[in-house]
């Protein structure tokens, strides 16, 4: 079938891609300030992955215990293994408090203290209880509230529109081309400012806590436009993903006292973190689990260990951890009050992404040259707030806060500029991709390619990394990229063509996965979530630097000259010990 010319052409001051906390936060600020804004999202806004966040949103309100911005800042820096930019973190901890009040005034139903203030709880890596929460559905209520406010302020939504290409020329963003999922057909959006807020990209891995929609499309599109990505090798693995599914079991389980055990029934954390045991940081536990599994002490020799909460008693489990119980019961038919729950590490959060400065403007090189009119925020962006490892509850906060800041900046920007000239052939690139899937006679199936990619990513750049494995992986991805060119799809229609969307997404995954591997290969140290068995030590002399990676005809080009902003007098790099 031949896809007809773009049915629609839209001219809108600001286009936001992504309706998670970052995208909606920005859109709301722009709309409130009287700016014109459209949000494009491939799933209904309330279906964005921000809604999955359970634990909370970090802010040093000090509602239940002593806390301060400095403490929050230090925890975040330490958590980042000193790769976080400290100017960004400084702004973040100050704005974080405002963001929480901003949310509350918009109607977010936070859990309350006895005296009616926002309740807060402790979370891994934070030295004070600073996670503001709403039962175990924090991200969900934040997301819904933002969406509702956007409706109130007449933000224009293009629901179920998948962005297929970015229109960037001469370092000026001019708009995007998106596919109307429901009816089919390409739409052109001509804009002054463009915000990329497409969220995480854990779907590159086999076992992940991320949603199907988290395929990092905008990252791939950035690469395609000759722009770099930053710190892509830093991928956080969460220790308690449900076996085979990767679905997240809340950290609360360990917080309440659940044990981790191996095939022999040993509480193996004794060997790895004798003091903190199951409450050690995520990366430490994930590595411990993986070691057990690799050394054959996974349950029945398989790739999982046990999360045992039986000793907590039925009552406590049902009262404090109902969701953990329910997930295990629904998905694995395991009754957590009677049997231990199979778990394994799951790719959870991506620290790297589209490089952006403190104003969320996308930059194109180590010197920080800005791409005019292009912004990035949320998990898709790398500001770099989380450095080499992010702390729980900081990411929801990061997405919302920098989304909000981004909105304010964009509002100013669109008032001062005119529309850039449209590119000559806006539809061409998107159309070419579609045509290739539609008309290819090849036998390759995108699903099989994706499965191979995910399998190998988890196997070779997972919790542990080493040169031999990654060299192997590099070759595998090269092959897959070749095979991907031959992919054809079954569905040639236009209405809700999921086949086309998935094929496109597999292309995205392949594109940036290559960058993850190259970055991890080049970074010969272990820092935060990036752990090399062949270089197990952090090396500040050589590697206290951000990674920038471009995709060129000759492969991935890396640049390690972008410095980390560090306030040497206040927060000099120390060893990260818990």
């Amino acid at each position, binding site marked *: 079938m031949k896809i007809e010319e773009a049915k629609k052409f839209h001219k809108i001051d600001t286009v936001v891609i992504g309706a998670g906390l970052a995208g909606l936060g920005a859109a709301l600020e722009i709309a409130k300030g009287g700016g014109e804004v459209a949000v494009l999202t491939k*799933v209904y806004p309330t279906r964005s992955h921000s809604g999955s966040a359970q634990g909370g949103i970090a802010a040093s309100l000090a509602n239940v215990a002593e806390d301060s911005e400095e403490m929050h800042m230090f925890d975040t820096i330490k958590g980042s293994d000193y790769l976080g930019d400290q100017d960004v973190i400084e702004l973040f901890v100050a704005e974080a408090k405002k963001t929480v009040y901003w949310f509350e005034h918009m109607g977010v139903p936070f859990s309350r203290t006895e005296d009616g203030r*926002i309740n807060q709880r402790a979370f891994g890596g934070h030295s004070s209880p600073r996670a503001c929460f709403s039962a175990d559905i924090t991200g969900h209520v934040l997301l819904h509230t933002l969406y509702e406010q956007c409706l109130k302020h007449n933000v224009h939504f293009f629901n179920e529109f998948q962005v297929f290409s970015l229109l960037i020329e001469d370092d000026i963003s001019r708009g995007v081309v998106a596919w109307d999922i429901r009816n089919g057909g390409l739409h052109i959006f001509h804009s002054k400012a463009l915000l990329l807020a497409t969220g995480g990209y854990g779907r590159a891995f086999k076992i992940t806590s991320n949603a199907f929609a988290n395929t990092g499309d905008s990252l791939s599109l950035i690469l395609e436009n000759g722009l770099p990505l930053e710190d892509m090798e830093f991928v956080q693995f969460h220790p308690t993903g449900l076996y085979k599914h990767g679905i997240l079991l809340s950290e609360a389980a360990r917080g309440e006292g659940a044990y981790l055990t191996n095939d022999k029934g040993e509480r193996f954390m004794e060997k790895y973190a004798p003091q903190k045991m199951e409450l050690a940081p995520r990366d430490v536990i994930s590595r411990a689990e993986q070691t057990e599994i690799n050394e054959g002490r996974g349950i029945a020799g398989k790739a999982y260990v046990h999360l045992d909460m039986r000793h907590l008693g039925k009552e406590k489990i049902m009262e404090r951890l109902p969701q953990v119980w329910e997930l295990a019961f629904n998905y694995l*038919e395991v009754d957590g009050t009677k049997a231990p729950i199979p778990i394994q590490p799951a790719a959870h959060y991506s620290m790297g992404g589209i490089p952006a400065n403190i104003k969320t403007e996308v930059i194109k090189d180590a010197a920080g040259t800005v791409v005019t009119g292009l912004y990035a925020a949320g998990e898709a962006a790398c500001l770099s707030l989380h450095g080499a490892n992010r702390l729980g509850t900081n990411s929801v906060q990061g997405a919302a806060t920098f989304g909000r800041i981004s909105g304010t900046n964009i509002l100013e920007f669109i008032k001062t500029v005119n529309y850039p000239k449209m590119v000559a052939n806006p539809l061409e690139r998107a159309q070419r991709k579609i045509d290739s899937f539609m008309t290819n006679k090849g036998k390759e199936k995108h699903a099989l390619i994706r499965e191979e990619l995910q399998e190998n990513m988890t196997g070779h750049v997972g919790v542990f990394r080493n040169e031999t494995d990654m060299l192997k992986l590099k070759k595998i991805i090269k092959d897959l990229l070749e095979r991907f060119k031959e992919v054809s799809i079954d569905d040639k229609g236009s*209405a*809700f063509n999921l086949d086309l969307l998935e094929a496109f997404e597999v292309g995205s995954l392949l594109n940036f996965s290559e960058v993850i591997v190259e970055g991890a290969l080049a970074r010969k140290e272990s820092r935060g979530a990036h752990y090399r068995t062949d270089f197990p030590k952090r090396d500040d002399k050589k590697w206290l630097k951000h990674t920038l990676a471009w995709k060129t005809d000759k492969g991935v080009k890396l640049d390690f000259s972008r410095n980390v902003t560090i306030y040497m007098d206040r927060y000099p790099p120390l060893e990260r010990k818990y």
Partner: protein
Amino acid sequence: MDEQTNVKVKILRYNPEKDKKPFWQPYEVKIEPDATILDILNEIRWKLDGTLAFRRSCRSAICGSCAMKVNGRNILACETPMHRFKGRGLKIEPLPGFRIIKDLVVDLDSFFEKMNRVRPYLLLDKPIPDKEFIQSPEEFEEIREVCICILCGACTSSCPSVWSNEEYLGPAALLKAYRFIFDSRDDAADERIDIVNDKNGIWRCHTIFNCMEACPKHIKITEYLSRLKVKAVENSI
């Protein structure tokens, strides 16, 4: 956990570009016995028939994309293991009551539009404090459960009053109204009750309970609708 079994699945297919009306298409899938309905659908999409369309995203019962009708009742495909249907064949259909876009994908525009009708956002007359509004744990408890709603549409789609009257706001939108009317911070309860107190509003609910049976979040919808009814009565006499 790892050996596979054969499952017989019938799926209601509809392609607007080809079919005059929906038809049942049988599939046979080889899959692990602990697979969910969503796993089965994915397996079909990825291995057998790429033209099958459905919505999904989080696959952990929080985004609300994957509501559909399986063996006669609305469920979330991602959280429902097939063994819940005890080895019977599976019949998978789109949500009833809505119009079909393609296969299992239904048009939810009216659903969201109804949501918007109840003005689903906090409306304030009072000045905004420097810090948070004070709300007691008891006041929070009033709305805690309804805030879990993931807007999956399973409830509204299962309600016989909706089937026979497309204008009826339906349980999800009414629950949204409840969420704000009973929020101690909100100042526009009266206005919202006026919207809900309508022949096509709360009074179309005949306490049939299909909504409560369908809700994947186990929200006691009917109880909240009853409170809304009593509130509407109090307000109009």
